[in-house]
């Protein structure tokens, strides 16, 4: 049996990390897969880091992705992408010996949110994180999703733009994504978000980019 597809979504509270994680899991279910999702929540305050794991395939056991085993780590913020970069599938070899290994991708919204509650964070923020990770050999695809979202009229839609980009990297059919978005998004925001999703897909439509991004 092939290993399930494993994804990590990371960002800052209020960015809509959990929404796009759940939309991905639901799209996979709509496409006929088993899926599990997990997140840590509890302290419900804004401003802290948020992470969610999604796995889908014929049968999924663990809802948690192992470090070094994520096909795509979706970072809605640069520092959070860095924090979870060790989850990206980077090396050969796994627990399943009969497994064909592919390399993973770090898909990042090129956007910085300085942790407001950390003294000195402004000076110490790792602005060069993506270059650093690229030098380490990680496949990094950085997209200006927040900027594009603002251009589309609402900076908060960066998450759905990133989801659109992610949809290019996964094998789920486009109709399944669109049906899932239509079903799950409140009517008030539906059209704008469908536009954002499509804009996200277009960000990765350039052939070179796509070749680089496909796991």
């Amino acid at each position: 049996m092939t290993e399930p597809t494993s994804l990590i979504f990371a960002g800052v509270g209020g960015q809509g990390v959990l929404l796009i994680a759940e939309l991905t899991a639901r799209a996979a279910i709509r496409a006929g897969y088993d899926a599990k999702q997990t997140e840590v929540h509890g302290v419900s305050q804004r401003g802290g880091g948020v992470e969610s794991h999604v796995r889908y395939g014929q049968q999924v056991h663990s809802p948690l992705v192992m470090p070094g085993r994520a096909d795509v780590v979706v970072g809605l913020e640069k520092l959070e992408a860095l924090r979870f970069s060790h989850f990206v599938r980077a090396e050969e070899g796994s627990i399943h010996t009969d497994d064909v290994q592919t390399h993973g991708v770090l898909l990042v919204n090129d956007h910085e949110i300085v942790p407001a509650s950390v003294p000195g964070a402004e000076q110490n923020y790792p602005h060069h994180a993506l270059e650093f990770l690229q030098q380490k050999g990680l496949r990094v695809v950085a997209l200006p999703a927040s900027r594009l979202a603002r251009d589309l009229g609402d900076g908060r839609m960066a998450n759905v733009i990133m989801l659109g980009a992610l949809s290019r990297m996964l094998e789920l059919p486009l109709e399944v994504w669109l049906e899932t978005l239509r079903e799950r998004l409140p009517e008030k925001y539906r059209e704008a978000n469908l536009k954002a999703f499509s804009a996200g897909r277009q960000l990765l439509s350039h052939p070179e980019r796509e070749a680089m991004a496909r796991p």
Partner: protein
Amino acid sequence: MKEFLSGNEAIARGAWEAGVRFASGYPGTPSTEILETLAHYPEVDAQWSANEKVAFEQGMGAAIGGLRVMVTMKMVGLNVAADPFMVFPYAGTDAGFVVVSADDPGMHSSQNEQDNRYLARMAKVPVIEPSDAQECKDFVGHALQLSERFTTPVMMRTTTRLAHHKGLVELGERIQPQQAAFRPDPRRYSVPIYRRLRRPELEKKIESLAEFAETYPLNRVEWRSGSASVAPQPGSIGVITSGIAYQYVREVLPQASIFRLGMTHPLPSRTLWEFCQAHETIYVVEEGEPFIEDHLSALGARNLVGKEIFGVIGEYSPERIAAGVGKDFPAPSDLGREINVLPRPPMFCIGCGHRTVFDVLRQLKVTVAGDIGCYTMGALPPYEASHTTFCMGASIGTAFGLERAGHERTVAVIGDSTFIHAGIPSLIDAVYNGSSLTLVILDNSTTGMTGGQPHPSAGKTLKGKPAPKLDLEAIVRAAGVRQVEIVDTWQRREVGRAVRTGLAHEGPAVVIARGPCVRLPEMRLEERGAFPYFVDEALCTQCNACFKVWCPAITRTAQGFPIIDALECTACTVCVQVCPVDAILPLNVRSDGAPVNVSAEAEG
């Protein structure tokens, strides 16, 4: 039909399907969503109670009154409910009663890491442990059947990962159990005169449950190598596991035979022993303490590998199991040495009314005994003005003790929900025993940390029905406190003055710092007809006073001016109060008095 549900949502669905009629609890991560989901079912009388002991006792009454019952709480909540929990099994119940204890390995949102299977063993209560969302739903029905068959309360133990993961769940229909009428029976329900007679029966009950466990289908053996009847093959591995850890085992050791325990108390000793004998090595993989492992050791099993490699501390994960069994997997790179991976701790919300209080306490340099809620973050930078946190309601007793130990300037800080939960007896006692502590009640009309659940002074119930609003001031005065002040929590000077007055007062003093949690729907700017604030650079002198209120919505422009994020500003006005030149104005007014096009300004 299948639905994608969290463990907690599935438990709620399971309770509904199994015909539960009454459900109670107190919010606590990771259990809160169970009752929130149950509240949507009109057939279930679901409610938040003042605390877990009250919730348990209400459930107990409903069960002996003939209704199927679910009571929910986080693991430390069961400490509060331990009194009825330890006694109820003596009487037992004819209608099904299940208490959900949501344990939190890893302490994602808890003050300790206790494993409540021990409490259940102490109470002689059977424990059911599901392993995925489907079982979260199905096991509720099994637990209620078990409860009725053995006339005993049953504990369902979940853990954070189980409660907060989502999976596909096949749904069923609701059944409608017959309601048995309450039959008064002093020999059964009265302590202590008749209780001695019940004691041997309780012992017999747990023995017959242990026998029942031997063939209980929730305890499942999955043979993949070896078998019960053959001597163990060299190198053969068997795993004994329960809960979410079962999933990690399936992931990491797909070839191993697994004994999955769906009921972890009492344990099926005979079949476990046979399983141990059939393998050369037995891995015991259980989150929390060595509850199963110690039992197996006591049976005499000598081929066990468990806590010494997997550990007792923290949450389990597939990589932790993999590392334990010596499987190779890519290790996380140690990036921290080469690049600054700044932490991102949670923080008080922008506009949170607690910020002002902790700012005042920090400046007063008093000793602060804190309590359980969002305000535990008062201990973190930049405030660092909360010095103790133990358990629900402990602030007042701790402050009392500190005062007795010579710390005269001691302040207790407690939220409204926590005060109602366990603070009231402590305040009564502080007055009675002659304390002069100052108590600040952070009255935000909700249970904030768990996401905003109503409580007795919130004016509504879990189901959204209007309810009488508990008058906190009247309670405090009735306890005998003479010095009581109610202040707007966002008025810095007022809060400071009231706390100082309280400290100076001979005898106990209470400050009620009032203001709704900014996460409540009624606090949205449009609901309040309020506008976000902005800094008028024509007036601003760059004195930096506004930065000293530590509002994360205030950052600096390239020119050095403060700038307020209009999407984040809650119009709390704390920065306005400290600006010496009145340069911070609502977005609908300019300094020259001209109205501003709010939407255009917000986008700019």
